[in-house]
């Protein structure tokens, strides 16, 4: 065991390789678990069972769906731009996997300790729009293009409240490093208590940023068939789905790190945390947030496009600005 630890400490390449493999595994597993939970909870909310046929309570359903997607032919539409069309799913998946690199699951369980971790992660998160735009444009389909355009407008509008609400936390911690931000919350205090407005704004805008249901205009089924991935099938469609759940995980883990105290046990209970138990607390908080997002998804209908824009520009941005100003004022005084 010591031998392995030595090697990992000595050769950063080995550490990179291991963390890369782990990240890919986590992204895939997360998609499978979340896909299953989504279908199950959706079913229960609609008073159905959800998947029940494959395995005990249908737990193997997502694996089988993955196999089905892998076995399908990748079809490029005749008038599409083949290079960009094939590129888009990869561009969608890669930033998600890269963003996982800076997420600290516990105080020693992370791939990279960047001092600008938050900025890096937000940059990777906003690359997602890029791939959606490429996917929508290159497939030469009116629904895809509409979905892509909507997605860009939506992400431009909702990036601002996300940044402003996170900035309020950063003003207090004076650090972009995730470890320092979490260490700041190691006591009784977590930021959801002293920054509740920022927390709520972040959750709403995060829902919109990941294109989840109250704000899923880019893929509105009833209007645009499937939006920007209408023309995609097989595993390129699968990559979009995996990236969507990956984005959900990233948003939830940012909320956990910034507002819920990351890997710290609840209410500053020190003896329950540690390098291993920290992972448990972290994943527990992340999954509670993701379950809330699923619950929200199957509760609300889709907003209209003007309502979407109104919510961001008339409500979220002014409130996050005021919140930021008040925070700056208080930090300056104290």
């Amino acid at each position, binding site marked *: 065991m010591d031998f392995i630890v030595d090697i990992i400490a000595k050769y950063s390449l080995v550490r990179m390789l291991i963390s890369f493999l782990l990240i890919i595994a986590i992204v895939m597993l997360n998609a499978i678990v979340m896909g299953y939970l989504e279908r199950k*909870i959706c*079913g229960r909310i609609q008073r*159905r069972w959800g998947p029940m046929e494959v395995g005990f309570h249908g737990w193997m359903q997502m694996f089988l769906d993955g196999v089905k997607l892998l076995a399908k032919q990748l079809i490029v539409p005749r008038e599409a731009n083949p290079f960009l069309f094939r590129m888009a799913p990869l561009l969608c998946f890669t930033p998600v996997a890269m963003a996982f690199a800076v997420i600290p699951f516990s105080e020693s369980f992370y791939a990279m300790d960047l001092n600008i971790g938050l900025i890096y992660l937000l940059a990777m998160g906003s690359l997602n729009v890029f791939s959606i735009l490429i996917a929508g444009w290159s497939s030469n389909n009116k629904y895809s293009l509409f979905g892509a355009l909507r997605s860009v407008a939506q992400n431009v509008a909702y990036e601002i409240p996300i940044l402003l609400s996170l900035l309020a936390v950063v003003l207090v911690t004076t650090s972009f490093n995730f470890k320092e931000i979490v260490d700041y919350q190691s006591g009784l205090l977590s930021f959801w208590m002293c920054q509740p407005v920022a927390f709520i704004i972040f959750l709403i805008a995060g829902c919109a940023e990941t294109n989840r249901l109250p704000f899923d205009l880019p893929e509105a089924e009833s209007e645009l068939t499937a939006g920007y991935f209408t023309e995609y099938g097989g595993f390129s469609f699968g990559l979009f789905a995996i990236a969507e759940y990956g984005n959900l995980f990233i948003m939830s883990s940012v909320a956990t790190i910034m507002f819920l105290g990351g890997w710290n046990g609840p209410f500053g209970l020190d003896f329950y945390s540690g390098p291993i138990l920290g992972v448990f607390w972290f994943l527990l908080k992340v999954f509670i947030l993701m379950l809330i997002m699923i619950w929200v998804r*199957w509760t609300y209908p889709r907003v209209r496009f003007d309502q979407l824009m109104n919510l961001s520009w008339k409500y979220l941005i002014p409130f996050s600005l005021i919140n930021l100003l008040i925070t700056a004022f208080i930090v300056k005084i104290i």
Partner: protein
Amino acid sequence: MNHYFSEIFTGGKSLLDGLVVTFKALISPVVTVQYPREKIDISPNMRGHIDLVKDLETGQHRCIVCGLCMKNCPCGAIVVKGEKQEGVKGKVLTIFNLDFSKCSLCGLCVESCKKSAIDFSDEYELAAFSREAFHFDLLKRVQQDDTK
């Protein structure tokens, strides 16, 4: 400006109300049935194809071969034949065929039967690949039927 803030309050409250509704649905029991493995009870008013009723006392059907059902059937779906046998009073049923592909489930046969010898069954899994699968030999069915 007042409207702006009251809208946030009422909107937020109605959103929370919605979440409560779906949470109640989430924890309440499931109403769908896993069909091939689980089945719900059939209503007694169910109109399946007709069947000869088995008399609980004699263990036999009650048909006296009066032929009223056959004559009343507007679709001509029923064929009833009987014969005289030694030592038995009245006719004995030898053939009672139903062509269910013609039957319109009007129920005139059941109504016209003086002896209440036929009744609707509760069969509903009746998909088949050939027309002949719907030519039922009801006499055979009632003789093979051990349940009633």
